[in-house]
Structure formats: structure tokens, C-alpha cells
């Protein structure tokens, strides 16, 4: 039994790494097709996590899942966060409850264990924090401010929708407070971009080109891509 608990704890790490991978790929990539590619790479990495869940499924059959739910929950939420981020990059929307459950099924279509609504909601709530980083670090890319605005609206809708569930899900209240902060940060960033853009009487494409020119002249020799993937602070401006 200790094995399964240990495994559940270990599941935290690959999911977290996937999130950093997605951030890095999404930043290097430009355009929808590249985002889809980043998402695909993320999904592949998450395949490892799915395999680990498949490996411990026998420990979590029937009521055993509820017995160890407390131990499984954090890793599972991290996994859902990574999965929803990959999903967002490719489709631009929120992954559904059923879609998440489907990724945790064997080839015979039988779920490894029942996904709880609480884990789903808490997992996708964390997505808003990742999207804040994603939106803010995206500003130095062509089309970044438009993307940030879309992300902003998406996060705002998430917050409004999740609000309805807060009385029913424990801890969601706290996550909502964090979401509100992330949302305000994205709003402030988009606002700054809008205000500054107004100083130039140029079409958005030309502004993008201007930004791109400067950014690419700096990023050449920095070697950032070799940086350790475990430094979240890198994503803050």
C-alpha cells in the first residue's frame, strides 16, 4: 500500500514539469500550429502520468479510492491543471469533466477510478494562475496582446462560472481568491498594452514587427532555452 501512496506523491512532479514544458514551448512557439505542437508535446509527457495512474489502479479499486483519496488528490489536481493547460493551448477552451475522466480510462474504457468533481474544479482553477503567466510572458511575441486579451476574457468567464460552485466545493473559495488576483494581473497587463499602443498610430502588425525586432536581437545569445525547467520565477516579468 505504501507503494501506491508513494507513487501518488511522485505523480506530482511529472505534471508540474509538463506545465513548465508547456510554458517554454508556448513561448518559443508562435501561431496556432506551433501552440498545437506544444500542446501535443505536453500531452505526450502527460502520457507518462497516465501510465503511472494505470499502474496504481489496482490499489484504488472500489472503495479503496475513497480511502486514499486525500493522498491521491493533490497529484491528481496537478495532473488536471497540466492537462487543461495543454488542452487550452490547442483548443483555446476549458477541458470538460468527461474529457478528463476519459484520459484516466483503460483501453477497455473502464475508468481507473472515479474522478471527483471537486478534484476537477480545483485542478482547472489552478489553470488560471498558469494562464496569467502565459498571458504576461506572451506580450513580447507578435500577437501577444491579442492573445492576452482572449486569455483575460477566458479567465474572467472561468471565475464567474466557478463562483456558483464555491458553496459546494471545499477549498474552492481560496482558489477563487487566487483566480481573482491572477485576473486582475492580466487585466492590468492588457490595460497597459492598450494604453501604450495608443501612443503609436500604427496598425497592430507593425507594432508586432517592432517588438519582435527588438526582442529577437536580445534573445539570440541568452541561452535561456537551456535553463532549468524548475524555475517558476522565470515566468514573472
Amino acid at each position, binding site marked *: 500500500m505504501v507503494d501506491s501512496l508513494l507513487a501518488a506523491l511522485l505523480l506530482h512532479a511529472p505534471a508540474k514539469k509538463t506545465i513548465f514544458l508547456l510554458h517554454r514551448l508556448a513561448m518559443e512557439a508562435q501561431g496556432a500550429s506551433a501552440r498545437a505542437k506544444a500542446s501535443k508535446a505536453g500531452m505526450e509527457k502527460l502520457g507518462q502520468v497516465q501510465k503511472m495512474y494505470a499502474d496504481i489502479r489496482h490499489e484504488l479499486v472500489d472503495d479503496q479510492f475513497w480511502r486514499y483519496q486525500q493522498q491521491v488528490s493533490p497529484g491528481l489536481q496537478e495532473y488536471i491543471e497540466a492537462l487543461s493547460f495543454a488542452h487550452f493551448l490547442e483548443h483555446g477552451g476549458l477541458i470538460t469533466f468527461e474529457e478528463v475522466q476519459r484520459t484516466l480510462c483503460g483501453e477497455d474504457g473502464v475508468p481507473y477510478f472515479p474522478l471527483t468533481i471537486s478534484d476537477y474544479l480545483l485542478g482547472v482553477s489552478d489553470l488560471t494562475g498558469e494562464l496569467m503567466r502565459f498571458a504576461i510572458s506572451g506580450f513580447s511575441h507578435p500577437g501577444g496582446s491579442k492573445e492576452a486579451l482572449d486569455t483575460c476574457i477566458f479567465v474572467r468567464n472561468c471565475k*464567474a462560472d466557478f463562483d456558483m460552485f464555491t458553496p459546494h466545493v471545499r477549498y474552492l473559495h481560496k482558489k477563487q481568491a487566487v483566480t481573482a488576483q491572477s485576473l486582475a494581473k492580466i*487585466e492590468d497587463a*492588457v*490595460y497597459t498594452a*492598450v494604453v501604450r499602443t495608443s*501612443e503609436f498610430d500604427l496598425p497592430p502588425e507593425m507594432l508586432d514587427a517592432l517588438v519582435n525586432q527588438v526582442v529577437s536581437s536580445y534573445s539570440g545569445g541568452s541561452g535561456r532555452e537551456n535553463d532549468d525547467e524548475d524555475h517558476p520565477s522565470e515566468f514573472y516579468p
Partner: protein
Amino acid sequence: MDPQSVENLNQMLDHDSDIREKIKEQVNDFEKKTRVIIAILSKIHSTRSESIPSLVDSAQPALHSCRETIAVIASLVPPNQFWRWKDMYCNSLRTAVFAAALSEYLTQGTLISLQSTSDMLGMQEEWKDRVTLAAEDYLHGLITLVNELSRLAVNAVILGDFEQPLKISAFVKELFSGFSMLNLKNDTLRRRFDSLKYDMKKIEEVVYDVSLRKLVSKDPAPKLNVN
């Protein structure tokens, strides 16, 4: 203790917990309703100013439906026990005040009064000793309004509405000067009042940004007469 008094005390406690449970049920309902309203009103941040009135209208049925819940709570509270039970529902009540005040500001551009908020929520004079809208709860709702408006100022600019921050700034300044005249005791309301200055700072910055870049057509500040 003799058995009779134990019995009596038990009965009284049962009676109280009975009331508590019944009120709790209504408070849950009230909370659900206010969440629906807030979900609708949170869309103001991504709605262009011309569609805001219809958005606000769509939230009104839910806001009016709070009256029924409040009326049921009033029927459950025993006479002269307003203060005893108010903590159970005051959070929802403050949210409802906020929704009413935001609706009023967005449609009329004015500040809703305590009396009209109270009327809007269907408060009856004869319940005064059981359920009423206390000044404190009304003021809490107004502070939430300012918190929300500081975000709206930012988001209006994102949507290209450069007039809104100026309107908000004038409105909030007036509201703030009204608040400063109140003699507040040292409680949560006073602390929340203190936080208003950060919201004002934020709004001021937005006004500064749009005025400096001449994004608004007319000069908002009265010109200084330099001789």
C-alpha cells in the same frame, strides 16, 4: 438541576436550533441567488458600454427574486431579534446591496440611497425589529461597489471606452468624501474604508493615462487659471 428545568432548557435549545436550521436553509437560497447575480454582473468587464444596460436588465429578475427569500427570513425571525440572527445572512445581503448599487450606477450614473436599496430588496417597515437593512451593511455594499469600479475603469479602457474612467473617478471621489464624513468605529467597515484609497489611486492612474495621451475628447480637469 431538577428534571423539570433540564427539560425546559432542552426545549428552549431545541426551539432555537429549529429556527437556526430554518433560517440557514433560506440563507443558502439567498446565497445561491446572489451568486447568479454576481455571475451575470461580472460580464460588465467584457461588455461594451452600449450593451451594458441590457446586461444589467438581465440581472434584475434574479435581484428581485431576493425579496421572497428576505420575506421568508423575516417571517422566521422572532420579534425583536434582528441583531441575534443578522450575522447569518448579512454577507448575502451586502452582496445584494452591491448588485443593486452597481445596477443603479451603470444605468443612471447615480448613487443608490439606503432607502431605495431597502425598497428594492422588499424590506418592510413592520419587520424593522426582525429584518432590516442596517446602515453598516449598506456601506459595506458600497465599498464593494468601489472595488469593482476600479477594475471596471481598467477594463473599460481595454474595450476602448475612455470616458468611463472619468465618470467613475468623479463618482468615487464624491462617494469617498461622503464616507470620510462618517465617524466609523474601529471595525471591518473602517478597515475596508481605508482600502478605498488604493482603489482611488488605481482609478486616478487610469484617468492620468488616458488624459495624458489625449484619449478623451474633452479635458476632464478644470483648467488652472494661471495669471
